[in-house]
């Protein structure tokens, strides 16, 4: 299926968020995830089934103080 991940087209055969993170080699402990603007709880990563066309945002913490 085709997803949009962080604004970029992404083709995958994975079905759940957990599988997607593993495929992308992203450590799940350090990120937060939104699918179609809904924040997904970490405990749901294993069971949350992605759908074709889903808009996925994967964020983490970077250096920052204020503004910008």
């Amino acid at each position, binding site marked *: 299926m085709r997803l949009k991940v962080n604004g970029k087209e992404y083709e995958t055969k994975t079905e759940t968020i957990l599988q997607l993170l593993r495929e992308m080699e992203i450590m799940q402990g350090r990120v937060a995830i939104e699918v179609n603007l809904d924040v997904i709880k970490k405990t749901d990563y294993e069971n949350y089934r992605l759908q074709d066309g889903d808009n996925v*945002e994967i964020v983490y*913490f*970077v*250096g920052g*103080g204020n503004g910008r």
Partner: protein
Amino acid sequence: MEDKLIIRGIEFNSRLWIGTGKYRDFEETAKAVEASGADVVTVAVRRVNITDRRSENLLDYIDPKKYKILPNTAGCYTVEDALRYARLAREADVSEMVKLEVIGDERTLFPDVTGLLKATEILAKEGFIVFPYTNDDPVMAKRLEDAGAAAVMPLGAPIGSGLGIRNPFNIKIILESAKVPVIVDAGVGTASDANIAMELGCDAVLINTAIAGAKDPITMAEAMKHAVIAGRLACRAGRIPRKLYATASSPIEGML
């Protein structure tokens, strides 16, 4: 005498809070944080770089077990965006705390206080520990407190300006009227500015650019640590009143 800052039951080991932007690299960030003695470290929420996924992570250098990670909503210009970033940050599982920013103007980075108030109210109801970045406006500080802010973070001067505490009288009025802690966020340029904020009676100071942008950030981090400690002690000790004329400090008695 113990003089720890406690907010909503969370004990803070230092009254200096540190931002992690603008450092040369993560190593320098970690060294500056260490030298500052801070235990609160504020971080921004951004997209993971999916084309270079093995790039280093800030939290590999700033251990969330050792430091209190304070996610911020820096760069958000609307209530909706600020809420979105705050909710995502909470799900990243480091903290219920959020340094809430709703910016109103790109050039000055002054807060949009109407949006800030709205966002504070919503997030406080959702159980967040909200620290709103606000103007040095005593009325707004009160409104934010009423909306559920755990502390208020008035600016001393615009973000990154290094102009210092431009309106100490307003900060003083905020301090007198606020029931929640007051943490100066933004404007500090050098150690004396941090010192003044603390002497005024502020509960803590958040500093980023003044340290990260110094010629030697690690030494400046250490300077800020001492300035904050000295300012707090001076505030507790109580300064002498200012007088126009001299008062001799040596006795007249026994003079020839």
